């Protein structure tokens, strides 16, 4: 691995991702790498969710986390955000798209909202 690849890993992995409006998206749980002709390694996409974090952690706990994520989301694959949607790499990683445009990302959030949070009476208003 070249030094640049390592730097990219440090600057990307486990960082907070925010969308174009500054809304919280999640953490970079893993990266999808591609080997270009000539042996160069390039980051293709940011991977998010337990299906990405579990395998990276490894071991039995990693396996549990992956399986839990796969069962909850009913999908083996993690959430994938191609690097072309990354606008800025800084203290946080800013995307050029909206959080709602990322497929499956808010599934759990929305399920809990509709099936749990909205069922409890009297919650503070959604003021946005």
């Amino acid at each position, binding site marked *: 691995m070249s030094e640049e690849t390592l730097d990219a890993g440090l600057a990307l*992995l*486990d*960082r*907070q*991702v925010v969308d174009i409006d500054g*809304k*919280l*998206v*999640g*953490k970079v*749980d893993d990266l999808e790498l591609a080997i270009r002709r000539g042996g160069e390694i390039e980051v293709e996409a940011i991977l998010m969710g337990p299906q990405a*974090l579990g395998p*990276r*952690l490894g071991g039995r*706990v990693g396996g549990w986390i992956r399986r839990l994520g796969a069962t909850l989301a009913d999908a083996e694959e993690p959430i994938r955000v191609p690097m072309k949607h990354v606008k800025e790499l800084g*203290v*946080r990683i800013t995307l050029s798209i909206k959080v709602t445009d990322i497929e499956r990302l808010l599934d*759990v*959030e*929305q399920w*809990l*909202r509709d099936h*749990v*949070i*909205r069922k*409890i009476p*009297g*919650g*503070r*208003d*959604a*003021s*946005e």
Partner: protein
Amino acid sequence: MKKILTLALGILTAIGGFMDIGDLVTDALIGARFGLNLVWVTVVAVIGITAYSEMAGRVAAVTERTVFDLVRERLGATAGLLNLSASYFVTALTLVAELCGVALAIQLATDVHYLLWVPLVAFLAFLVFWKMPFQPMERIYGVLGLSLFVFVIAIWQLDPDWGRMMHDVTHPQIPPGEGISTFAFYAIVMLGAQMTPYEVFFFSSGVVEHGWSAEKLGEIRVNNLIGYPIGGILAIGIQVAAYLVLQPRGIEVAHLSETVLPVVVAFGKLGLALAIIGIFAATFGSVLETLLSSGYTVAHHFGWRWGKFEAPVNASRFSVLVIVTLLGATAVALTAIDPIKLTIYAVYLGAATLPFTYIPILIVANDERYMGEHVNGRLANTVGTIYVFVVSAAAILALPLLIITKAGA
């Protein structure tokens, strides 16, 4: 004028954040058992938490990032997850202790067993989380918590030998009948009670959520530099009061009724009433803080939407987690687990987790790419580094001491 008021309220919040069931139990217990020989630990702890809270607040203001957000980035996925599990567990355990603390305060006032009050207290906490604007609540508890100063005033009423007390504080020794291991065990208990990790998570989360930027750094410093030391004075006050009243009578602290005994001796029923109000306010405020903090640690680790200002429908994972944590803590409290022992365990384990949050804070506060001109100065770094050694030593010694002393028996 408005500015001074905001500043005063911020300081009150810091004092309120400092005082919780951990302090109320350990200060009295240690004062009764070790006299003034561990007062120095409070001084050490107050300097430490002031320094780290300022650093975490500064990092949060400059980078808009909270402690657990940074912990994951700096410790990596595996160590980050381990630290998250430990911190969540300790914070939830502290929540159980605080819930019992509020219920015990009501028991002191009503003579009705605390277990009957626990569900009611939990429901009140839920209502505040679910329906109320948080900031006014936090301030109310800060103001009411000031009635704990009755412990400090009681010292004058008890008319002690000041010269001897001064000598005892400045010449600490292991009291006869105690071993070096129990002395060290209770020193760590005291450190954990006063450098409670959730206070730092909570404060840094507040800075991010209020949207405080670098312009607010002055205010952040004032909150910390005045609020925590005043909290420390209160803590020492409770130790001294226990030393004056409980130690000569050979009373051990196994219940909150012993904690308040010194003010009852000094001021009778009025003292008791003030102490109960103060304990209620301090512990109920801490119920809310530990409850939210347990949600913050997880939400910040995974990058979810979170917040006490966010309507629950906009942060459903965070809100569900908070509610589940509250239900779980209530269930544990209702098992009639001894709340005083539980408090000791919670603060002790809290001390053991401190290095894993303090080291990332110190590293990031030193990183110019993050902090720009607000990077740590020499003072913050010197104090910060010394405390990394202090809390690491405590964390390393924690488990062996727990076993050797059979949890301070």
